């Protein structure tokens, strides 16, 4: 019985420790930006617009 209590208390203290660590390490400083950051793609999906296109026909059409 006492061993079980010791276990449960240790487990809860570990979680308390984890919480204190998370506050101290600044995880609560900015609660918005990380939620946006995780949605970004890591790989580049856009390629350079080819220089030919920039000075190419389309541009001349405009002029």
């Amino acid at each position, binding site marked *: 019985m*006492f061993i079980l209590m010791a276990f449960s208390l240790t487990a809860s203290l570990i979680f*308390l420790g984890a919480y204190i660590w998370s*506050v*101290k390490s600044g995880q*609560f400083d900015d609660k918005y930006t990380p939620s946006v*950051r995780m949605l970004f793609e890591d790989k*580049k999906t856009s390629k*350079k*617009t080819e220089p030919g296109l920039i000075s190419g026909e*389309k541009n001349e059409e405009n002029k």
Partner: protein
Amino acid sequence: MAINFGKYEAGQIPADQQKAMICFHCGEPCPDDNISIGDKSFCCHGCKTVFEILNANEMCDYYTIEDTPGITPKQDLISDRFEYLDDETVKPQVVDFSDGKTERVTFHSPTMHCASCIWLLEKLHEMDSRIYSSVVNFPRKQVTITYNREEMKLSETAALLSSLGYEPLVNLDTVGKREQSSAEKKLYLKIGLAGFAFGNVMILSFPEYLSRVGSVDPTFKTVFGYLSLLLSIPILLFASKDYYQSAWAGIKSRTVNIDVPITLGIGMLFFRSLWEILTQTGVGYLDSFTGLVFFLLVGRLFQQKTYEVLSFERDYKSFFPLSVTRMINNIEAVVTVLKQKPGDRIVVRNQELIPADSVLLKTEAFIDYSFVSGESTPVTKNAGDFIYAGGRQAGTTIELEVIKEPSQSYLTQLWNNDVFNKPRFSRLNVMVNQVSHYFTFGVLAIAIIASLYWLQFDTATGIKVFTAVLIVACPCALALSSPFALGTAMRIFGRKGFYVKNTDTVEALSKINTIVMDKTGTLTESGQETIEFSGDRLAHEDQEIIKSLVQHSTHPLSQKIFQALDVDAIHPVAKFEEISGKGIQGHVSGREIKLGSTKWLGLQEDATDAEDMKTRVFLSINEEVIGSFLIANVFRKGLRPLLSDLKKQFSMFLLSGDTEREKATLVNLFGSEENLQFRQTPENKLDFVSRVQGEGAHVLMVGDGLNDAGALRASEVGIAITDDVSAFSPASDGILTGKNLHLLGTFIKMSKATTSVIVASFVISIIYNVVGVSFAVAGKLSPLVSAILMPASSISVVAFTTFTTSLRARMMKLT
């Protein structure tokens, strides 16, 4: 007949053309399709440049996250304007961290506004290999850049941000100021700790709640008791520390604030439990104790809604730029403002601020003092004239000689006034403290009488009853009703563009009886003016001729007329002449045109004109006066209904730094002439507020400029009006966006509704206390009753206040 010249608006473009005409980068309408790459049009070369930079770095994902996310970079600025940041005296104040190789700096960049901005600003290392990483804190609008110190200069990082349109804001105030977020961190820690203890103590006392059903092993009872005690000690010593400090501070200043009965209750709870556990006479009330502290701290968190990006404490330091261009032997160098000495020669460009009181050396200046003095028309200054600091130059580049150091200037003298040196506290007594005064003495009286009664029979019961009354009367619900009601109101205000500094402001707002308003920038929209032409309708050709003439003049009025005329200026101008203080003239298409003041054109001063003093520019063609351009300020929308509504309930005053030129309109709006005062200096405004306060008024000051700073500070509630919340606004209790000024009356009404909700919840919580105290007086307060009564009263009061406050807001259409 009068015609209106509307400004160029996006809505005028036919729908099918609209898409092509919107800038691919920033979404602004493009004036023409001259600037384009492929099928993408840009409104200016600045936007095009940013696109080219991003394109070259294969970073056009920027445009796929949100549509047209870009910001037009500032134009016409010299490239080395950040060089002062590399100065050995400035740099250590700006960078966060530096060792031999790497350096880290945090810039405030108010223009970031969307997910694309975050994406781009965190990808800076892909654009410049000298940057190691960059991290955005979006709520604070900050970007922290870590870079290679040996290869990159601090000024280059600032220039890189600026080239992308994210102009970093570095002013006198940001220097040497380090953010303090540790208070909030501490609150999180305390709540975590209290919640942890609350939950565990609750579990440990659970067997006791059910003890009537089955008996609890006495060994476990002892162990559980000691464990609970162990868990409660950090709560007593750390989590509830603020309450003791506040109560002590209250007693020292001879007031009984709400924290006094709380401290009494908390102390009684803990020490009675301690005694019961140590003597093994009971299990104590530690579950109530931890729960109480937990609820109180949650209330504090709710109350502490902070607007991280806004600052309510700004003074002139955050208005002035950090750098200025100094001329040394005809060579321009960018130096810090603080280093300015009398005798220095400085250069001020278009739209830059004059940083110190100085004398104009070269050419003519048009100084816009609207933000500093409230005068809405730019003032013309000639070489040799004295110019006060704080004005903004409109037009060409000017050269000045500094007369006084920036900290000694006329404008900054206002901050030497006493109001700025005293710590500011509300003269209005906070409602909850008034109640707690009577409450505390009432509870103490009941406790003493009840214990005296029981002492006749039994000493132990007497002491028990005394402590039980104090425990159960702990005004937890009383203490929670204010933060939750006011906090809810504060969030509702925030959603409507009215950001208040703290919950006390909401309460103070409900008690005001006098409203003092500023004119320029507060009642009128800053930078917005209507231009009307009165006289015969101008032919298209005449408009072209006028526009051709005014385009040669840098005078602000000429510029305004130029923008208002929606035709192309195509005619060459001969014999152009600008006569300072009078007007401009020239020959266009064989006709002689003059634009200028009444006198110069040989007209009699019109009596009605002099009265309402609108700015008029007269036009004559071939010596014949055709008519005049009328330039008037634009009052904010909904102003008339707002003022007529407020007029009924409050004494209204207008203090304007401007001339009487719009007096007639204002008398109409405010109802009487006596309450209007013009040509007020910043000190006048401050003195006026202090004077009416002396006559018993509770003042709400509404202003926008530096000239209102003193009055805002002296009043009970000072609200700063701003069109851009990230731009400078003087120190205040609340910041209200200009487009929501018409809701001011509703905000005041809402604050009154909120205080009545608080009164109602006081009644409810006192009913709970009466019930609890009747148990306690009868000597029947068991831990179970306490454990049920305390959370039940707290939760029901929190639910009641939050719900009714939002309901009242919905009834006022504020949600």
